[in-house]
C-alpha cells in the first residue's frame, strides 16, 4: 500500500515540478558561486584602484599654504592658537612663517615657535627670511615685502597650491568658514583675490554697518576707490567694533550675525587676509613696497578680473598702523581676543 502511494507521489505532476525546480536551483547555485568568486576578485581589484585613485586625488588636490607676515609676539601668540587647530584639522597643509619681525625679541619668539611647530608637524612648517631679516627693510616709511612675493612667485612654490596671505595682527579666524572659503577659492577661477569677511577692514566695515548699530551712521560712508575710509580716520570706530564683536562671540558663540553676502569688487582693498590661487602668484615677481596696490588693483585691472569678498568666512584684523595708537593704548582688546580664542577654540575642539 505504502509503495503504491510512493509511486503515485513520484509520478505526480507536483513532484515532477519540484524535481525540475531543484535541478534548476542547483544550476543557479553553481552559477551564483562562480559569480561570487568573480565578484570577490573584482572587489579586490576595485579596492586596489580606489587606493590608487585616492592617491592621485591627494596628489592633484591643491596644497593649502598658510603664509604669515610674522612679527609682533603678542599678536602671534593668539594667531598661533588658530593655526594649530587649522593644522590639526588638516584644513591647511603647510604653515610658512615669513620673518618680518622688527626687534630681536620677536625674532627669537618666531624661531622658538617654528621649532615647537616642527616638532608637532614635521615637514609642514617653514621659516623664511630669518637670516636675511636685519630689521633694515624700511625705505621711505614703506616696508619691503619682496622676500614673501619672490618666494610665492616661484613655480615650485605656487604650483598646485592655494596661498593664504595673513597679516600678523589677524586675531580671529573662523575655522569652519575658512574651510568654505578655501572650497570657494579652488572652484572660483575668475576672482583674482578672495578676501575674507574681515572685522576692521576698510571695505568690509561699510557692509557691517547694520551689525554695529551704535556706529551705523559713521560706518555708512563707502571708502571711495577702496582707499582709507571711516575706520582709518576714526580709530574709535575700530575699537567699538572689536569690543562688541569679541564680547558677543564670547557670550553667544554665534558667528551667523556677522555673515554678509559675498560680493565682487573692482577697486582696491586692504589685504589683511586673502586667498590667492597658486597660478596667479606668477605675477608677483617684482612686487615689493606697494604690494597692496599691485595685488588688489594693478593686476586684477590688467587681467580684467574682479576681487571678491567671501562673506561666510569671518576674521578679525586688529589694527592699521594709524589706528595703533588708540587701539593699543591699553591691553583691553588684546585680553578680549585671548579670551575669545580660548572659548571659541574650545568649542571647535
Amino acid at each position: 500500500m505504502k509503495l503504491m502511494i510512493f509511486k503515485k507521489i513520484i509520478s505526480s505532476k507536483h513532484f515532477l515540478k519540484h524535481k525540475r525546480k531543484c535541478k534548476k536551483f542547483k544550476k543557479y547555485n553553481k552559477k551564483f558561486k562562480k559569480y561570487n568568486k568573480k565578484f570577490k576578485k573584482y572587489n579586490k581589484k576595485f579596492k586596489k584602484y580606489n587606493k590608487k585613485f585616492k592617491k592621485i586625488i591627494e596628489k592633484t588636490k591643491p596644497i593649502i599654504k598658510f603664509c604669515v607676515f610674522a612679527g609682533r609676539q603678542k599678536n602671534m601668540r593668539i594667531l598661533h592658537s588658530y593655526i594649530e587647530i587649522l593644522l590639526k584639522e588638516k584644513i591647511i597643509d603647510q604653515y610658512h612663517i615669513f620673518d618680518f619681525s622688527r626687534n630681536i625679541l620677536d625674532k627669537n619668539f618666531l624661531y622658538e615657535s617654528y621649532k615647537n611647530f616642527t616638532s608637532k608637524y614635521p615637514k609642514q612648517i617653514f621659516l623664511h627670511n630669518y637670516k636675511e631679516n636685519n630689521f633694515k627693510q624700511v625705505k621711505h616709511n614703506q616696508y619691503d615685502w619682496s622676500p614673501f612675493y619672490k618666494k610665492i612667485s616661484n613655480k615650485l612654490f605656487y604650483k598646485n597650491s592655494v596661498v593664504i596671505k595673513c597679516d600678523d595682527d589677524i586675531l580671529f579666524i573662523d575655522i569652519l568658514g575658512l574651510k568654505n572659503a578655501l572650497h570657494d577659492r579652488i572652484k572660483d577661477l575668475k576672482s583674482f583675490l578672495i578676501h575674507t569677511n574681515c572685522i576692521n577692514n576698510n571695505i568690509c566695515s561699510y557692509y557691517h554697518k547694520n551689525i554695529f548699530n551704535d556706529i551705523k551712521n559713521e560706518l555708512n560712508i563707502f571708502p571711495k576707490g577702496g582707499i582709507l575710509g571711516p575706520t582709518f580716520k576714526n580709530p574709535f570706530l575700530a575699537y567699538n567694533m572689536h569690543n562688541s564683536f569679541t564680547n558677543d562671540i564670547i557670550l553667544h558663540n554665534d558667528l551667523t550675525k556677522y555673515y554678509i553676502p559675498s560680493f565682487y569688487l573692482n577697486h582696491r582693498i586692504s589685504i589683511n587676509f586673502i586667498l590667492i590661487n597658486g597660478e596667479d602668484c606668477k605675477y608677483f615677481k617684482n612686487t615689493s613696497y606697494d604690494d597692496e596696490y599691485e595685488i588688489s588693483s594693478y593686476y586684477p585691472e590688467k587681467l580684467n578680473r574682479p576681487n571678491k569678498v567671501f562673506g561666510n568666512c569671518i576674521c578679525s584684523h586688529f589694527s592699521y598702523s594709524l589706528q595703533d595708537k588708540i587701539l593699543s593704548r591699553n591691553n583691553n582688546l588684546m585680553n578680549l581676543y585671548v579670551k575669545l580664542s580660548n572659548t571659541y577654540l574650545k568649542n571647535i575642539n
Partner: protein
Amino acid sequence: MNNYKINSYGNNKFYIKNWIDEKFILKVNKKYFYIDYFDNKIHLHNNKKTYFNIQFFQNDIIEIHLGIYFFNRYHLNDDFKNRNLLLKLMYNNQENKIELINTNIKNQYYMQFIKSKLYISFNEDQLTLTQKPKTPIEFIKSKKTYDKIWVQRKIKNKKIYYKNLHNNHFYTNFYLGWGCEDCISILQ
C-alpha cells in the same frame, strides 16, 4: 550671488560710463589746473587739465576735492599724500572750506581758505598760498557729450591709463588704485 561683466570689445577697447559728468575744470589765464601723477603737485598747464569735484555749501563757500583728497593748506603746500590726509586732518573738515571772493571779472573769484585765511595763488605756473589775493580763478562745469565713452588702455610704470577715443585725453585715478573702476561693471 552677484555677478560682473567686462565692458570689453575687441582687443584693448572698452566702453565705460562718462566720468566727467558733474565735474569742474579750474582755469587761470587760459591755463588749466593740472596735477601730475608723478610729483603730486598742482600747477598750470596749457592743454592738460584735471577734473575736480566741487561741493557747494552756500553760494560762496565750497570744498574742492580730487577723489579722496581735498584742497587744503596741507595738501597744497606739500603733496597730495595720505600722510596729510590722515595725520593732520582727522575730524577736521574746517581746513577744507574755501570762500569765493568776487573779482570784477565775470565768473572769476579769489579763493580763500576760511580757517587759515590763505589765498590760492600762482607764481610762474606753480601754486602757492599767499596772505593777499593775487590770482583770480575761473571754474567751469564740464559738459557731457556722451553717456558712454570708448577708451583704450595703456600701461606705464605699473599704472593703468585710459585714452578717451573721442577726444584723445588720457585719464587715470590720481590715487594708487584702479585706473578706472568702471571697466568691469558689477551686476548686483
